[in-house]
């Protein structure tokens, strides 16, 4: 019963990674958007066949199934959620519509933000006529200034129900400090409209979904959760039935963007957003631990986007600043994965107004019509077209041969739309496209690394995604990095990642404490108050783990604190060295860690303890470690890779066209070594080993690429 099944359901493919009885396998099947359980069933079936088992046998040997998806988000983008009513404090009914004013720019790329004349706010999830204000008010200490007017509320409630509302979001000012009015409103709704009357009309309280300061983001969190709840619930029922029909009775866990996971029925919809990339990040951390890589940049280059995330000193503890889901800014602790518009489908364009400046992306040809070489009607030259012309891609082996690429179409697109306007040869234009896209990705890696206070040269790149291995040497050099690793399961990396994850719940609570008063006069001495917040969060964790059938005694806790110098608006999240406090020395230790992390991220020039130091929020991570999977290794195959050699292809590099050896990835064995330039192909990806780079296959059959000299790249 030691087997594990990992599923990552994406828009096009459902990825599956299975580990059972000391063997592993992985596969991709088409996603079935009308019923996700079908695609999932097919993936598990295919994995079982690869392991020479039938599906029932595989499920019988499986102890846990973990799954991530972003498909619930499509319901959001298509605005196909239920009709909800929003109940808020009177006078503040427009909070979601105002959206801090510049909501129209949230979630847009920089260039689109600059086009003011095109500004449009997102279509609200709850229209104004379904929003009601209630007469009540709390202040910044959570004290009731105006009691809830229940009669007035009941009249408003009838108005909502008359308009066909099928669920309620309650978000009142300062409710995270004192939820008394939110809870009373729920009682009144349940009393007035119990299940037998109208069927289930769920009530979502902001103080429970997101007990954090700032009413806009607390409300967006609660609205998104309510909006996605029903479709996610229906989806999970289908998957649960499919698995139970196959005889599976063990837990079905869902990956969270916090880096943890929980039973599907204890997962808030908002926490499942971006679960796949986060699983990839967690997988990188686990692989890094195994292989001695404490600093890793995980990169995933697909058709339209380039995603990156970082493991630093073995930790994944970086969160997004003001994350957006669709066009909504939320206050969720989402692990920091970045996405820019650079992928195989990125379009190259000559900007005549800027003196023929060549720009690549962020516009993408997508999968339909796709790059010109797909021959599906696309005319724009793309990165994949360039890769094909440069000889990196084989026209017959793309997507395992499922799609034959048209070199003629690619050539015409690049010749007519890039080479001719620039007055250069077509192959030079293709090389320029590659250099620009690689530089863009490399610069993004570089910026992200240094902004967190680290030197990119101390990092290794894990390259994943269909297009990543073809460009990894290029973007690594652009980021001034010299080591890239391509794992055998690189094309299903996110699914692999969830196999390494612990059961982890994250609890947050906004509570303000002045750690150091302005003028450095006094340290916080309310130790009991501080400890009580942590204890309350721990008690919550104990209840949740017990409810999921785990032993709470095995749970480990980590505390993080959102801290800032007095008056600052932004907080820095800091790993607290202590779970409980009891002395001034403890307070000084908290400050010392804050000072260290603040200096590292920004600048020691910015330290200003004279302004006072404040704690704004507590974040408790409760972790139930999962047993580490054993390392699966292949037998040593010697240094000579010639057994995997399949031929030679002419490929274009900076120095010109070179007859380049081609190898089959499946046949490379641990110990094999080769020097760039070389091409390594598999069914779903091509690894380009650039000149000056060397490749060695490690014991896990991962390809380790190393830049021969430490000479820096372009950026």
């Amino acid at each position, binding site marked *: 019963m030691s087997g594990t099944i990992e599923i990552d359901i994406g828009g096009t493919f459902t990825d599956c990674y299975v580990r059972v009885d000391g063997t592993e396998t992985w596969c991709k099947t088409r996603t079935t958007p009308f019923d996700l359980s079908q695609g999932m069933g097919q993936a598990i079936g295919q994995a079982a066949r690869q392991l020479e088992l039938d599906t029932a046998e595989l499920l019988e040997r499986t102890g846990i199934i973990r799954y991530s998806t972003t498909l619930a988000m499509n319901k959001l983008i298509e605005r196909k959620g239920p009709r909800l009513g929003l109940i808020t404090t009177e*006078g*503040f009914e*427009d*909070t979601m*519509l*105002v*959206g*801090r*004013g*510049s909501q129209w*720019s949230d979630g847009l790329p920089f260039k689109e933000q*600059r*086009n*003011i*004349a095109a500004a449009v706010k997102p279509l609200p999830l709850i*229209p*104004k*006529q379904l929003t009601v*204000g209630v*007469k009540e*008010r709390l*202040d*910044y200490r959570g004290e009731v*200034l*105006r009691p809830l007017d229940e009669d007035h509320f009941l009249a408003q409630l009838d108005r909502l129900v008359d308009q066909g509302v099928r669920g309620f979001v309650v978000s009142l*000012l300062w409710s995270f400090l004192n939820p008394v009015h939110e809870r009373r409103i729920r009682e009144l709704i349940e009393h007035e409209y119990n299940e037998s009357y109208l069927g289930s009309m769920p009530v979502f309280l902001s103080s429970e979904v997101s007990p954090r*300061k700032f*009413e*806009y983001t607390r409300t967006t969190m609660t609205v998104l959760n309510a909006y996605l709840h029903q479709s996610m619930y229906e989806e999970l029922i289908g998957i649960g039935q499919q698995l139970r029909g196959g005889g599976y009775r063990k837990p079905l866990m869902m990956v969270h963007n916090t880096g943890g996971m929980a039973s599907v029925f204890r997962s808030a919809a908002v926490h499942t957003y971006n679960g796949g990339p986060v699983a990839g990040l967690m997988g990188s951390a686990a692989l890094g631990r195994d292989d001695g890589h404490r600093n890793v940049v995980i990169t995933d280059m697909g058709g339209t986007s380039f995603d990156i995330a970082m493991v630093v000193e073995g930790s994944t503890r970086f969160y997004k*600043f003001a994350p957006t889901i669709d066009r909504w800014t939320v206050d969720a602790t989402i692990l920091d994965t970045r996405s820019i518009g650079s992928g195989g489908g990125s379009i190259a364009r000559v900007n005549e*107004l*800027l*003196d023929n*400046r*060549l720009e690549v992306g962020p516009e993408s040809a997508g999968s339909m019509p796709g790059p010109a070489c797909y021959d599906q009607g696309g005319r724009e030259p793309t990165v994949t077209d360039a890769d094909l012309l440069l000889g990196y891609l084989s026209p017959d082996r793309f997507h395992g041969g499922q799609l034959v690429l048209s070199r003629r179409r690619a050539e015409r697109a690049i010749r007519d739309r890039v080479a001719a306007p620039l007055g250069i040869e077509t192959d*030079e234009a293709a090389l*320029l496209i590659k250099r*620009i896209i690689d*530089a*863009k990705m490399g*610069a*993004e890696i570089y*910026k992200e690394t*240094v*902004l967190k206070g680290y030197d990119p040269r101390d990092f290794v790149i894990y390259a994943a995604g269909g297009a990543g291995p073809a460009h990894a040497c290029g973007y690594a050099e652009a980021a001034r990095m010299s080591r890239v690793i391509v794992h055998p399961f690189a094309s299903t990396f996110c699914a692999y990642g969830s196999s390494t994850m612990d059961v982890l719940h994250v609890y947050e609570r906004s509570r303000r404490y002045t750690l150091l008063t*302005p003028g450095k006069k006094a340290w916080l001495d309310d130790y009991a108050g501080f400890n009580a917040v942590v204890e309350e969060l721990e008690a919550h964790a104990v209840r949740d783990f017990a409810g999921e059938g785990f032993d709470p005694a095995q749970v480990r806790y980590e505390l993080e604190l959102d801290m800032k*110098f*007095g*008056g*600052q*608006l932004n907080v*820095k999240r800091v790993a607290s060295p202590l779970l409980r406090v009891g002395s001034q020395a403890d307070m000084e230790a908290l400050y010392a860690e804050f000072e260290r992390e603040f200096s590292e991220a920004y*600048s020691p*020039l*910015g330290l200003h303890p*004279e*302004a*006072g130091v404040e704690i704004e929020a507590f974040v408790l991570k409760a972790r139930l470690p999962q047993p580490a999977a054993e390392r699966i290794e292949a037998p040593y195959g010697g240094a000579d890779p010639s057994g995997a050699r399949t031929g030679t292809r002419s490929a274009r590099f900076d120095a010109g066209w070179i007859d380049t050896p081609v190898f089959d990835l499946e046949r490379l064995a641990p110990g094999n070594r080769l020097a760039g330039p070389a091409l390594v192909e598999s069914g779903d990806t091509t690894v380009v080993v650039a000149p000056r780079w060397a490749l060695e296959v490690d014991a896990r059959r991962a390809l380790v690429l190393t830049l021969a000299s430490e000479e*820096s790249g372009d*950026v």
Partner: protein
Amino acid sequence: MFDPTIVDRAMRSEPATEQELADAAALGPGDYEIFSENLLLMLQEGKEVMTKMGISSMLHSGDTLVAIFTARGDLVSAVLGTYLHAVTGQVPIKFILEEFAGDPSVGVREGDVYYCNEALYGGIHNPDQFALMPVFNDGELIAWVVSGAHQSETGGSEPGGEVTQAHTRHDEGMKLTPIKIGESYRLKNDLLRMMENFISRAPRMQVTDVKARVAACDRVRVRLQELAGRRGNGLLRGLFRRMIQQTSAGVRRRIASWPDGVYRHVVFMDTTGHEAALLRASVTLTVKGDRLTIDFEGTSPEHEGSYNAFTNVIRGHCAVNLFQFPFHDFPLSSGMLEHIDIRVPDGSFFNADPEAAISCSPLVGALVFPLLGVVLSKAMFPTEQRDLVCGFCSSSASAVMVAGTNQHGVRVTDFMGYPLNAYGLGARADKDGVDVFGFPHGPWGKAPDVEDIEAEFPLLHLYQRQQRDTCGFGRWRGGVGAAVCYVVHQVPYLAFTSSQKEAKFPAHNGLYGGYSMTVVPGIRVLGSSVLEQMAAGEHDLPTNDYELASGETALRGEVIVEHQTRGIRVLKRGEILAASTQGSGGYGDVLEREPEAVMEDVRADAISDWTAANVYRVVYDPETLIPDLDATRRARDEQRARRLEHGRPYAEFAAEWELRRPPEDAIRYFGEWPSAKPNRDVVRV
């Protein structure tokens, strides 16, 4: 002594040197594309450092700049929250190079940190503070980095930095010409202490934000040195030159693609900052070949009030329109303005004497928004840029400032980011404007949450919301503005000021027959017992400006409706101050708006029933909001017939119009009528 010619000289790009041209020619394939993006990332990193470290609300509202300049002080690239600052960095750098570089008592050396906030030296007004760092590599000065942000306190005679009752510069607090506040990459604590002393209403904010600016500069400085270290100083020289050249060439080509023409517009300002009065701002936009000329001749003379500006302020506001609309898709550099002449008449309130009070100059400069919004829209209408036609934002600059001791015992002074960041955006040629869009000077800034403000300031909000009927109506309507209402809470008293205009006369206009937006007054309630009434469960308290101003709710207290330009108002616990922003202008004839769209506006509470029936002439069922299309068509036909009754031949209209004249009292600061030429002396002591 201040040499006023420095501003004009500094704004012109330095001619390319042979070395720069050679370095630009030597750039390899892709170098320009790759490294220009790289500079942008460096700047974004710098801005993120500054924003995360800083305190001032305006820093978070986006009134910021992080920019790279050539060694000779021309803008190469910038990341900014307002395009005002596309013109602010060059002057102080060139001043330092002219005055101090060769002066052994000052000098420009590696590790230096300069600082300034004097608007005469290129800034917009003295709340804008800038840190400047020279960047050296191998002993050569290769670049300058500047970071700046608005800070809401200057130590003036009123709190908040924008001193509405100032008569001269001497009322406006700290004004630093470029001074060196750091050497060898270390800040001098004596000078920080001096600034704390100037800004004693908010010393914590001053020091923290100085450090935030310097840290941002330093981060970009390090990145530039790393790049120069790897690729040599020549790469930077060549790259910088190419970036300036290419922006310049792109702007020139776009202007050349527009038909030649002359476009004129006027708007009016309804206050001098001290008293209600009518002043005019005029513009003539000339498109000729590949050049634009923007001429503000016809603008009223300067005056003794606080609402004056300098040329650079006007230039900065032109940059906002130009970079947000016709040229929004070009990289920022000094090349942008090479083909645009901006003429500001001497002695006008757009180009006042150096002794004038100018801390409120963004209100004055913001008159440029509707002026250029209209003439640029007309110039672009027949071009490929028609999708950029937009009347832009209203610009009354609803800046409420709060000063006092907060509930935590800390002295605080700051702008309230709401409703400042909550103007509506004007209607476009093909769609409505945007409700509560943002701050026109920096449209990406954020209005704060109620819980954000109430945690730091002794205020309780009674409401914070969109404000019905504040938009301009039209075939496409402008976006509505917003209103906020504060109650003093937890402290015995608190001081407010607000520097605004357009409480009596809107400076903004609709496009092509669209309506202007409404004006918005200031409201206060003295002797209010709202806190006690809330505690007692009073049902009937105001929930918007209309209810507050009308006095028709159960709220007790004396309601005062006043101009939103307010000097210091000290309010006691429980007393109320409300402020609001306008929406923006509409586009096209109201009678052409689809009746269904009008009903949707009513449903969304963007307009009132009265407006739907009397402005849009839609006939509908008030319960179901279903329009009666036949009856609406008849009502609109009748309205058109009434319009025709008012119609007269143009010459007849013009003859009568020319005879009209506002009351003398209204035009006492206007200048000569109707030319607006100066007609009296302005005495400042």
